[in-house]
């Protein structure tokens, strides 16, 4: 009799195991959701920053007089970049702070799960002549 009692699992054990598995599954599921969200966020930020930095370098390499003050809607015929599942938009703003010195702003914005996000870089360009 005693040997028979020690064989197999009880309903209580199965119940506890199911609860633990469910809990662990929940934790794992949450982990995947969080990781996926962070991955998308980081990827978008990297792409946006790289585009903003490339644009800033391009602006800073221009001759000072070419850097016309004002809000630039387009620089190279492409002010929108279509990434995977994401669309980035670029804004350029040049302000004449004083004669011979301009403030340059590059913003790359995108929509992330219904929220507006952006990367902003600001620097100055002086007239070397």
């Amino acid at each position, binding site marked *: 009799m005693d040997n028979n009692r020690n064989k197999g*699992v009880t309903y209580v054990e199965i119940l506890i195991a199911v609860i633990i598995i469910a809990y662990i599954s929940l934790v794992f599921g949450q982990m995947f959701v969080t990781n996926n969200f962070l991955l998308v966020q980081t990827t978008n930020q990297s792409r946006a920053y790289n585009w903003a930095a490339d644009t800033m370098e391009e602006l800073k390499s221009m001759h000072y007089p070419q850097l016309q003050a004002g809000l630039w809607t387009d620089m190279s015929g492409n002010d929108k970049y279509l990434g995977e599942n994401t669309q980035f938009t670029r804004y350029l703003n040049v302000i004449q702070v004083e004669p011979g010195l301009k403030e340059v702003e590059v913003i790359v914005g995108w929509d992330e799960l219904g929220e507006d996000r952006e990367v902003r870089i600001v620097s100055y360009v002086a007239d070397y002549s």
Partner: protein
Amino acid sequence: MALVGVILLMLVLIIIAQAMIMLTRREARVEVEGRLKDIALYVADAGVEKAIHNINNDNFQPNFSFQHVGEETGGKMGEADVSVTQDGRIYTINSTGYIPSQAEAEASRSINAVVEVSPGLPEFAAMVGGMSSFAANIEVEGVVFSNEPISIETNVTFVPDEKGNVGIYCADGSVLSIDIGTNFDFDPENEATGVREILARGGINNSHRIPDGVNWKEYDDSDKTDPIDDTQILDANAMINSPDTYVNHDFGGDVTVDENGRATFETNTDIHLNGGTYYYPGGVEFNSNVTLVGDGNIVAGGPDEGSDDHHAIEINSNVKGDGKVNFVSAGGDWKDNIDININSNVDPHGVIQCPGDASISSFVEINGIVAVNGNLDAASNVAFHYEDDIFDAPLVDGSADAGVEMISWREM
């Protein structure tokens, strides 16, 4: 036993899961910090550019905090802490960018930049090594410097140049260093934003004609009235010896060169200079109604050249043109010691330079710099407008162009 096994297995999985979550979050945080550091680098670079701007505008500051990076556009981005050291023409700039501020920095990066500053053109409408004579009704926009006495006749007006400066400086120590005529108008609208002064190393005759509010001084001993050894700005020899310089170029027959090597630009012709430098060793004469099209340099004469009948550069009436043209005499022994003689109704845009004397007739309007190492004689109704946007030419200090050149740029 099975339950214990399941629990242990689950514990192991939980630990693995949590480790992965922490790892991912840490990676994300490092990524964000990296972005902030990248943005801080651009703020530091803004500090470098601001320092270069200050240096280039004679506003050297050894240490300053640039707290407003980004404020002009979408709001403050960060602060740059900048220090600058000077060794002659070399400036070393150290700039650290902080996000969002130096006091509460979340990220920072530093840049070390070394720049060389080539002195710009002197800020004088006329810079004269000898005596200066300004006849009636002359207008000067800018600053005049003369080593020897300055004579100013009636109705002469001085107004500020584009940089807001107006002034008269004389290095002559005699009692008649500056002689001021009647109806002397010195910045009558009080528009000067820079210097507004008259300084003489000697006496000023009729100083009561200087308007109130003007900073004027007789027997001044400041460095502003130190004599200038050589008023030459452009390097004539460098232009003459350049392989790119055209010698005795005839512009397709519109310029004739005689047996003495003297060139004559023919009357009623349009001459396309096309950005070139043209050298005429035997001197050059522009006949009336020549139109100079495009920018360029005209160089004439030389130490071994000269003529009793001609000047090194002679510009007759109505020589016009929209181009920026520098007229440079390279020296020689010319008629009446006058290197450059400009007749009426001429409006050059550039530097007028000669080691000897220069004579300018009525109704000439000069937009540039007159650099005469001898005497300057300006007839009535001449206008001097200081302008530093001249056609490229080598400067006497050896630099090809004035301005700032980046020698090195590196992150510290």
